[in-house]
Every structure is written in structure tokens, then in C-alpha cells.
């Protein structure tokens, strides 16, 4: 069968970097083709070329046999290619219907905008996607899973027959993931070709007909799903076999650092009324406490409340070394030697205009002072230690932080906090959006810190991660603590049951 898209010898260079080198592969009509690869492997560059965002590249793209070169995103849309980005592209203030028809608004015979017709059409599209929302409500108020379906509905209204999805499940709940799978099946039944980018093996093996692994800008190989295994694919992705890490042997649990009792955080504007209800936990030095829970279960809120970053309306007690504390600002938590690595690196962690050294030294600038002024030499000396010990790969302390990969950025942020000499380290989903190889390095780093005597609270949206790292696991469901188990008792099955019991 003639391929619907054929990519031959596509290269893209940015100043100093080859983002894509000699890419070539073909998509057969109606297939679901998965692309796996570590972050920085050129996936997003490839997508930008296919969607007309990047226009100057070498090589050739053929669409249904004819060579094409998109000079803007509209061209790609017209050719029937749509992309569902990881970060969704909706105008939050506009209604779902207005978003779906943005730029192609329907009009009444008098030339005025025809909201009724668009809302009707949007409603039908969304109903077909198992998304029974009111198309008139603002997109910003929808859940992430529903927002994604609004984007898919938009793609469908564009008569898309090639749909590119970039890690579409990264922000979804289990139920939303299941719904997305059904939607994908339905699209395939209609003959839509799907390019599915992900590094989650279970998804890839569930959905894809063929799998292409990319590493450092090059294709390793396209294979049929039936002729490979997840382990083989992850091996290709990192270029080596990663053994399952076993860390929890022989950690030495020390004295009790933190004691949380009956923590309740109200949520007045929500029908549930609370973000956290009656949560209690203990943390000792030299142990990793895992916090499991679905998205929205209150994992981040729990860490933020301990760290003094939540609204001061919470009740309950937090004891640090047996002393009751109530931080009203993260600064006070820092002073009490608590550190928090936030969930969303780009939004809550990085300073894109500051260089690597300044990003790392930010919380410990007091240690760089000479005569009351920040000494650049001292700063460089200060950050050199953690940059080396956490294994940040950077050209130097004055490189741009935005030029580092996600894993290295995360190591910089951990370095920032290590310089504050914390006793308690709060890690909120630290490996989100980080590729497999860097994950393994972060696991080793976290384990080492724990062995050095830190008490670590770790949340994660991936259960295997918690099972790998944590000594004990507590499970949150809708803001309530529903289970606490030791690592030996914990299984994915048991955690998932506790996370979904209400």
C-alpha cells in the first residue's frame, strides 16, 4: 500500500545543534504508529516540521505520494494533519465551541457570528467522543482530559486524517486514559492515521501497530509491535539495558523528623469542600515516604501545606522534631531546613533568564557573599559541588538553563535545594516528563540522598517509581488518606485499589 506520509532524509540544524539527522520513515494509511524516544531525541522538532511550524529543513516529505512543503500551520491543517500538543492550545476564556471553530467561525446569512450553529455542531462532535460537556462553557474551566477532547474535536472538524498526539496521557486520570483509548480506537475505525508519541510502554504496546524508536536525533529502527517487547524498546531508547533498580535494601531509618496529624485544607469553591481531609503521616530521617494518588487526589497540596506554600487556612498539626510549626511562607520552611522540588518544572521551578549557576545558587546566595556583595567566584565554587555530585551535564556554570535537557534541569533544581542543607526533601513528581535514562540517574541520586540521612517525601504519578524507591507508601484518594503500607506489602494492584476507593 502507498504510504500516506513518507519522510526521506529530513535534517534540521539549529545553531550548534543537529536536532534531526537524516530522518526517514513511512506511515501506512490507517495505522497507529508510535514514536518512542528519550526527551531531546528530536520528537518535537519532527512534529513542528510536520505541522508547518518549522519551514527550513533539508530533505523531503511526501504526502499521499506528492512532495509537500508546508510554509505555515494552515497548510498542514489543509492537508489534513492535526497535532494534539502536550501543552494544550486552547483559549481558556473562550467556550469549547468557540475554540473548536476558532479561525473558521460559522456565520449567519447576515454575516454575524452563528454561535448556535457552532454550539450544536460542537456538541455533536464532543458527544461522539464520549465527552458530554456543555460546549458553551469556557475551555479553561474544563478538566484537562476534556480539554484534550476539545482539541481532538477541533481536529475532527478540520477533516483531519492524520492525527499526531504528543504524550497525550501525561496529564490524564486513569478513567480519562481509558476513554482516550476508546476514542483512538474509534478514530482508527474511521481510517484516521495516528502518529502516537509516548515513552510509556504499556500505552505504546496497547495502541500501536508499529513502533519507531528515536535516539539522539536518529531513528534506531521501526518494528512491528508483535515482534518486540517493552524491555527491548526501552533498551533501544536508552541505548543500553536498564535493569530494574532495587534500592530499598539496607537503608537505615533514623529518628522521626516530621509528624503530621489530622491535616485538613478547605476548598471553599469546590463541591467537595476540602482539598485534604484528616491526613496524617510520619517521616523519619533516612527513609523515603511515597505518596500515591490519582491526579487531583491532593498530593501536591499535601507537600505545599508542609512547605508553607498553601493558603494559610489549613487545620491540624505539623510537628517538626516534636515542635509544632506553622509556616506561612516557603522562606520559613527553608529556614527550618525543608526543601521542595515542585511538580511543574517550567512553571514553578526554572528561571529561564538566569544561567545555570544563578538557578542553582538562588536559595543559598547568603553563602556567596563577600563584604555583603554576591561574589561570582564564590558562587561558581559553591554551585560546582552539587552540579558535579548530582551529575548535571552542562557546558559550564554560565550556560543557559533552557539549553539543558529536562533531566539536567531537574538535577539543577535538586542541586539548588541541596545547597540549603535540607533535612527533609519534598519531591513532587520529580521525574515527570523526563526520559528513561535520566530517570534512572535521578533514582540513584534520590536513593543516595536518602542514605545520607535525608527524610524524603516523594509523590509520583507512576506507581513503579514509588515501588522502586519508597520504603513506605501512603495513598490519597480525593484528599483523604485511604491506605498506608510498607514496601513489602505494596503492589500496584493494592495501591490502585486504595487510590480509587472513596
Amino acid at each position: 500500500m502507498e504510504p500516506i506520509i513518507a519522510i526521506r532524509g529530513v535534517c534540521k540544524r539549529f545553531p550548534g545543534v543537529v536536532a534531526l539527522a537524516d530522518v526517514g520513515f513511512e506511515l501506512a494509511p490507517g495505522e497507529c504508529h508510535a514514536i518512542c524516544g528519550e526527551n531531546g531525541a528530536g520528537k518535537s522538532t519532527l512534529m513542528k516540521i510536520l505541522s508547518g511550524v518549522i519551514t527550513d529543513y533539508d530533505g523531503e516529505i511526501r504526502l499521499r505520494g506528492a512532495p509537500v512543503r508546508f510554509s505555515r500551520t494552515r497548510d498542514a491543517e489543509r492537508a489534513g494533519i492535526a497535532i494534539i500538543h502536550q501543552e494544550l492550545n486552547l483559549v481558556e476564556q473562550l467556550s469549547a465551541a468557540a475554540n473548536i471553530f476558532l479561525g473558521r467561525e460559522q456565520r449567519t446569512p447576515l454575516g454575524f457570528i452563528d454561535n448556535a450553529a457552532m454550539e450544536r455542531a460542537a456538541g455533536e462532535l464532543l458527544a461522539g467522543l464520549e465527552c458530554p460537556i456543555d460546549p458553551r462553557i469556557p475551555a479553561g474551566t474544563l478538566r484537562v482530559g476534556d480539554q484534550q477532547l476539545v482539541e481532538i474535536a477541533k481536529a475532527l472538524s478540520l477533516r483531519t486524517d492524520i492525527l499526531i498526539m504528543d504524550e497525550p496521557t501525561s496529564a490524564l486520570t486513569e478513567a480519562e486514559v481509558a476513554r482516550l483509548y476508546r476514542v483512538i480506537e474509534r478514530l482508527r475505525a474511521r481510517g484516521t492515521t495516528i502518529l502516537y508519541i509516548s515513552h510509556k510502554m504499556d500505552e505504546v504496546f496497547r495502541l500501536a501497530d508499529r513502533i519507531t524508536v528515536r535516539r539522539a536525533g536518529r531513528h534506531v529502527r521501526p518494528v512491528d509491535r508483535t515482534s518486540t517487547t517493552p524491555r527491548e524498546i526501552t533498551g533501544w531508547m536508552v541505548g543500553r539495558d536498564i535493569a530494574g533498580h532495587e534500592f530499598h535494601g539496607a537503608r537505615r531509618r533514623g529518628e522521626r523528623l516530621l509528624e503530621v496529624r489530622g491535616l485538613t485544607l478547605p476548598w471553599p469553591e469546590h463541591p467537595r469542600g476540602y482539598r485534604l481531609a484528616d491526613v496524617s503521616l510520619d517521616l523519619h530521617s533516612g527513609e523515603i515516604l511515597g505518596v500515591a494518588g490519582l491526579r487531583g487526589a491532593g498530593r501536591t497540596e499535601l507537600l505545599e501545606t508542609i512547605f508553607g506554600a498553601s493558603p494559610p487556612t489549613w487545620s491540624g498539626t505539623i510537628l517538626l522534631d516534636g515542635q509544632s510549626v506553622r509556616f506561612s511562607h516557603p522562606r520559613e520552611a527553608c529556614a527550618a531546613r525543608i526543601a521542595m522540588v515542585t511538580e511543574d518544572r517550567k512553571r514553578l521551578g526554572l528561571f529561564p533568564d538566569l544561567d545555570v549557576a544563578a538557578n542553582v545558587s538562588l536559595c543559598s546566595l547568603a553563602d556567596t557573599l563577600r563584604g555583603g556583595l554576591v561574589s561570582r567566584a564564590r558562587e561558581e565554587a559553591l554551585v560546582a559541588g552539587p552540579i558535579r555530585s548530582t551529575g548535571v551535564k552542562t557546558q559550564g556554570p554560565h550556560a543557559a538553563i533552557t539549553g539543558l535537557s529536562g533531566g539536567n534541569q531537574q538535577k539543577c533544581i535538586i542541586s539548588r535545594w541541596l545547597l540549603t542543607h535540607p533535612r527533609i526533601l519534598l519531591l513532587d513528581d520529580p521525574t515527570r516528563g523526563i526520559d528513561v535514562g535520566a530517570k534512572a540517574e535521578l533514582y540513584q541520586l534520590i536513593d543516595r540522598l536518602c542514605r545520607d540521612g535525608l527524610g524524603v517525601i516523594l509523590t509520583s504519578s507512576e506507581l513503579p517509581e514509588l515501588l522502586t524507591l519508597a520504603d513506605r507508601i501512603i495513598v490519597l484518594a480525593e484528599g483523604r488518606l485511604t491506605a498506608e503500607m510498607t514496601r513489602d506489602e505494596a503492589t500496584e494492584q493494592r495501591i490502585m485499589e486504595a487510590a480509587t476507593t472513596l
Partner: protein
Amino acid sequence: MKPPAPQARGWLLPRHELALLAAIVVVFVGTGFLDPNGTYFNAWAESRDIILRNTALLGIIALGASVVIISGGIDLSAGSMVAMSGTTCALIMLLFAEGDDRRLVTVGSLGIAAGVGGALLSGLLVGTLHTWLITSIRLPPFVATLATLVGLRSFARAMCVFVTRERWGSESQQIQVNTPAFVWLKEHNVVISAVVFLALALLTWLILSRTVLGRHLYALGGNEQAARLSGIRTENVKWFAYCFGSLTAALAGIFLMADSSVAQPNAAGRNYELNAIAAAVVGGCSLQGGVGTVSGTVLGALFLRLVIDAVSKLIKASADIYEGMIVGIIVALAVTLTQFGQLVQAGGRLFPGLRGLAAIPTIAVFAGLLSMMGSANVEALRGRTVPFGSAVGLAVLLLLSAVRWLEGRRTA
């Protein structure tokens, strides 16, 4: 000089500052040779003083504007703050003057200290008010300082009228200030304001690039939420930024009052805030926050004033008529030039599609009209202004059309 700059650094100065420096030299030398009166040669001392005084006045406010902009905010109120500060200073001194002294000649050193102190204090108070409106009431900085931009000037005028009526029994919209110390300040204004400007620039540089507070300002402007979660007291950093912005404007207000020997709340400092923001932007500050340098702002202010001076010399028109246009064109050009490389690299075009087509005659008409008005001041073209303007307009039209045509071929 720019601590947290991942961008390209040149030798000693970053590339942006070097480009500005080159532009300054070009404008300066160009004006010197093109000026038919040769003012820079014949009356160098006078020209130098005008440029220095105006640059210092603009630069002092621009330094404050830069700090606010780097912290991710904006302060639109500087011009009104200039009026407020001068008026406050004069009114306090008025209270120390003898009853029938309407020229404030009799104010003693205590009165002067109180007046200057009160003016600076008014800056601190306004900065604090801004911070409160922004951090506690959660007004956007644009709205909060827009309110004070409109409100402060009116407040200063009301104060002026009130105090003069209470004191003298007759209302006055302005106050003469002929206090000996201020007369002396006026006589030495150029040197003193230039020295104060440079000292303030040095202080600002020290704060921004060598102190913890400075680093926190960049962090706040770059990513406010991350700054808070890193334990930075963002409200306090903002407090500093807005107070610094208002204080510099207050300082400039005292100099302006001394220079003109009169406190005029109605007229003093009008549009200064926009020129100051323009100088900061020309100097490389990003209105997104987190980016900017003191050296850039200083050079930006100098560049703006030099060009305004050059135009007033070359076309012998009064500078204030053309000032707005010059500032507008320079700001647009400066930011365009810094982004030009990216634009071309991204395969972007200057005149894409219908919009581009419509922009070309618009620019040509503006260029033609401007040259027509400008040529009226040139001896050789007198009486032929209309054909000259039309010729320039036509030339621009053809030139830009050629650019558009070439662009089309390049991207096709």
C-alpha cells in the same frame, strides 16, 4: 556587567550595549558634521550641557523604570511622581518661608532639608501604595500605576491650590522657587545632575548585579511563582522595586524644579514615564521581566536624548514637537533590530500577505509627509517641499516593494 545573562557576551560589554554604543557614536559624529550651523563645534559647551542635563534627568527616571521592569512590573506613574515631588518640596519650603515671601527666597536650611526630605518621602509613600495595590489588592501593575499616573498630578495640583490659599489667601497653580540653595543648584545643575545620575547608575548596577536583592529582582521578573516557591519574599522584592521607581522619579522631580525655578504640578514631567520606559526598552529591558541591564539603560537614555537633540539641530524645529515621533520610531526600530535575527532565522517576512501589502503605502505616506515637513526647514529645498516629500514617499514605496518582492522569492 549583566550577571544572569545566558545570551552572547562581548568583550567587557554585551553585544546589545556595544551596538548601542556604536549607534551613539554614529549619531553624535553625524550630527556634528551635518549640522549646518556646526553647533557641536561652535557652541560645544552649550550643546554638551543641554545633552547632559536632559540625559541625566531622563536617565535617573529610566533607572527606576528599569528596576521595576526587570522585576516583571511596570510603573506608568513616574511623570506624575515628578510633578508630585517638586510640588511637595516647594510646598513644604513655602511653609518655612516668611509669610509674604512668594518667591521662597527666605527659606533656611531647615526648610530646604524638610522640603527635599518630604519630596523623597512622598516617593517612598507612593511606591508603598503601588506595592500594596499590586500585592494585596492584586491590581495588575499597569492598572495600579495608571491610576496614580492620573491621580497624583491632580492631587499635586489640589495640594498646591490648597496650601497657597491657606497661606497666602490667594490660590496659585504654581510656586516660584528662588531659594538661594536652589538657585545655586540651578547654576551648577549640569554637573550635579550628571554626577547624581552616574552615582545612581553605579548604585543600581551594584544592587542589580552584586546583591542578593538584585538576583531576587531578576528571579521575580523571570518566574514569579518559582521565586516564591524558592523562598523569596516576592512582596518585599516588589516593594523595593516600586519604591525605587518612585524614589528616582521624586529625585528627578527635585532637579526639574530646581532647573526651572518653579514648581508646576500641571506641566512638570508630563510624558516622562513613557520616555523613561522607552529608554529602558531601547537599552534592552524586556517588558516580560527578568531581562535588562544598567549599562543598557544608561546608553538607551543617552541615545534617545542624542537623537532628539540631533533632530532639533538638523531641521531647526523645536524639539518637543518632534520628540514623540522620534521616541516612537526609535523604540520600534530598536526592538525590531534586536529581534531581526530571530525573525529572519524563523523564515519570517517583514511584509507578509495582505497586511504587508497594506503596510508599505502606509509607511511610504508617513515617510513622505515627514520629509515634506522636515524639508521646510532646509534652505536649499524651500519652496519645493511638496515635490521633495512626494519623491521621498515614492522612493520609500519602491524600496519597500522591492524588499517585499525579494522576500517573496526567498521564501517561495
